[in-house]
């Protein structure tokens, strides 16, 4: 495509602005524009450096290995972009101060607490209707039909579902990206010496398509 002749060639700034306006008015978006960019260093592990809308991402770990912190980093991708994120908290144990420290904007991060397993699928589906990124804890015995329905809903609504199964369990539905956090040694603590200051968490990423090749990286843990 040639540049519009009406614009002087030098006027790169005006052209950029025009492109921006056109981009907003355009009904179609390219797939790379539907990415929610994720903060470094996690971005290096992801195809395109972000979360693709309309997909499901699972975050697994065997407990206290940094899975929740990893999920916070993913949720922060949505609130950083000015979008809304929400969490489904089954047992009321999500530590929001840690979420804030990972960069999640709490005012755009409502949490639905105390959801009973029989209502879990309804709540997650309802959230996917209007919220860009839904971070959902998955009950241990989620029904396969519910899981399939939710995955389909995320695709249809162009939302991102971050599934956080209970420690030790795996996400039974399909997922574009599967994160497994494997933990790491804590810094700053010894017997009776100072408190923990942080750690590097080993993260393994697998998935379909571009992400099929397993990648391994480290993520600075905030807690």
């Amino acid at each position: 495509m040639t540049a519009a002749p009406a614009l002087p060639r030098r006027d790169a700034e005006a052209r950029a602005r025009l492109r921006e306006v056109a981009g907003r008015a355009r009904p179609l978006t390219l797939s790379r524009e539907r990415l929610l960019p994720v903060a470094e260093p996690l971005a290096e592990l992801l195809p395109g450096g972000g979360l693709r809308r309309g997909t499901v991402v699972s975050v697994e770990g065997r407990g206290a290995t940094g899975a929740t912190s990893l999920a916070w980093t993913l949720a922060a991708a949505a609130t950083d972009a000015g979008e809304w994120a929400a969490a489904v908290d089954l047992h009321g144990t999500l530590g929001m101060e840690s979420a804030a420290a990972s960069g999640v904007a709490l005012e755009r991060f409502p949490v639905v607490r105390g959801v009973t397993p029989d209502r879990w699928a309804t709540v997650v589906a309802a959230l996917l209707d209007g919220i860009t990124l839904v971070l959902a804890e998955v009950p241990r015995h989620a029904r396969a039909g519910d899981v399939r329905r939710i995955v389909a809903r995320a695709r249809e609504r162009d939302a991102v579902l971050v599934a956080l199964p209970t420690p030790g369990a795996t996400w039974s539905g399909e997922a574009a990206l599967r994160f497994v956090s494997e933990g790491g040694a804590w810094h700053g603590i010894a017997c009776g010496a100072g408190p923990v200051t942080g750690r590097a968490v080993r993260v393994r990423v697998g998935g379909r398509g571009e992400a099929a090749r397993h990648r391994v990286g480290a993520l600075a843990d905030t807690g």
Partner: protein
Amino acid sequence: MNPVIPERTLVCWCPAWAVSTARRTDPSLASAPVAVVERGARGLVVCAVSREARAEDVVIGIRRREAEARCAGLVVVERDPAAEARAFEAVARALEPITPAVVLERPGVLSFPTRGPSRYFGGDEQLAARVLEIVDGQIVDGQVAPDARIGIADGAFAARLATRTTAQDGGDGRVTVVVPGATATFLAPWPVAVLGQTFGDRPDEGAAFADLLRRLGLRTLGDLAALPAPSVLGRFGLDGAHAHRLASGGGEHAAPPAPPPPDLVETCELDPPATRVDEAAFAAKSLADRLIERLDELGLACDRVIVEAETEHGERHTRCWRHEGGLTATALVARVRWQLDAWLVDRGERDEEATGGLMLLRLAPDRVVPATTRQLGFWGGDVAAHDLAARVLARLQGMLGHDTVATAVVGGGRAPSERIRWVPWGEPRGDAQPAPAPWPGAIPGPAPARVHTDPVPAELLDERGEPVRVSGRGEASAAPAVLRCAALPDGGGPVAAWAGPWPHDLRWWQAASGREPGTPARSERDRRGESATRRRRALWQVVLRDDVACLVVVEGGRAAVEAVYD
């Protein structure tokens, strides 16, 4: 300039309506000092005070604890807006024989234009006496001294101030009538602070505006009214022009409010009929959203809305609500909910209440004015996303309960579970304050990603297998060697490293309690570490061999896992 002469209005104000409501529900409070508290950004704050409590210097705006300190024997009651509206509905209904045009502003304040009724009863004074008689008859159950006040003046703003005039200004102090045309003279000596209330949902801006005027040397409404209107508009913008208009005795709107276009009425039929308040309120929510959206499209704002409901048996109820500073969807829904509450809950106590479920709900703007200060995002964009999210969250609240959908505010506190305050979706977060300062005694380092509000019972043992204890001086009996807890992967294991203990002596000025960790907290206050009794505990940070880090709280010789770093 030729200001619109405002409609002559009667305002009836029942001071401390929240207190009257509390006394109505619990007659034993009749002669006790009562303070009604409301949960706000600063915790529980006094929002209404009985006469007895006021004599002890308990004033609105102080915190609950301070109020209790000022007045021994103070009875503190939590606010219940629905009950207030319900009780006030009875007063509004009693006034219906006098005028059909009763407008509720909030529970405790109502107004109506006096033109017709005044002529019928032979003058403003006679009308006021008549209204007072009716209102007193509704409120007083023989024990409480009647304290409703009446103000009549040109315009609701002046009439509202007239209700606040005290006895020393003449009369018995309960009825103040400002003669027609004297409104500007009546308003002149009032301090500019009274303008703060006209900002409606933006009390902070109102206070800031009044403060600015004061600092500029404009101390009274008269000072402000003496300035030329165009200069005030130029310096203070639309809010200033509005205040100037009010101060000079003009109407609330620059142009006379127009009757709304007939197609603005929003109706919804309920099938099956709603018999419970939350069912009807749920329908009202979408109705209110639709109405506000339609008004926005037309560039109109509405400050008075008529709520109308029909029951299965063909009864029809209508009530008009007014809101300072224009109605937002949230404010509108709150009012509709109160009104439905009044119609549905008290059913059976009085004959004229709704006898069946509600079939039809209608919201009609009573008068509209051009919206001057509202503008949607140019590209939809953020605003559209916000609206969509808000709708989804409101739906979930309707499904699961108000408190289950909440956002978190990080505040001060020592243990991780105390540092988070949950604000139900739709309520003000009150996070305008800067980020909290470092909290002495808080656990240093990163915040744990999993926090057990009710700590999970655990065993923290030393090398010999004895439980680790922490003395009153904060000294540990031995170094922890093994931690076992159901909340940890594989149930815990040998300890690799530890830090602490951090001893916490909570409420050391109170008597000690016997609460043990692991038992469910008794109340939300208890859970947030605010329980009224003294508690001593110590926190350990423990890292197990398999790199599992957690916080263990030891209290009364028992250990529990409070948080896990995940």
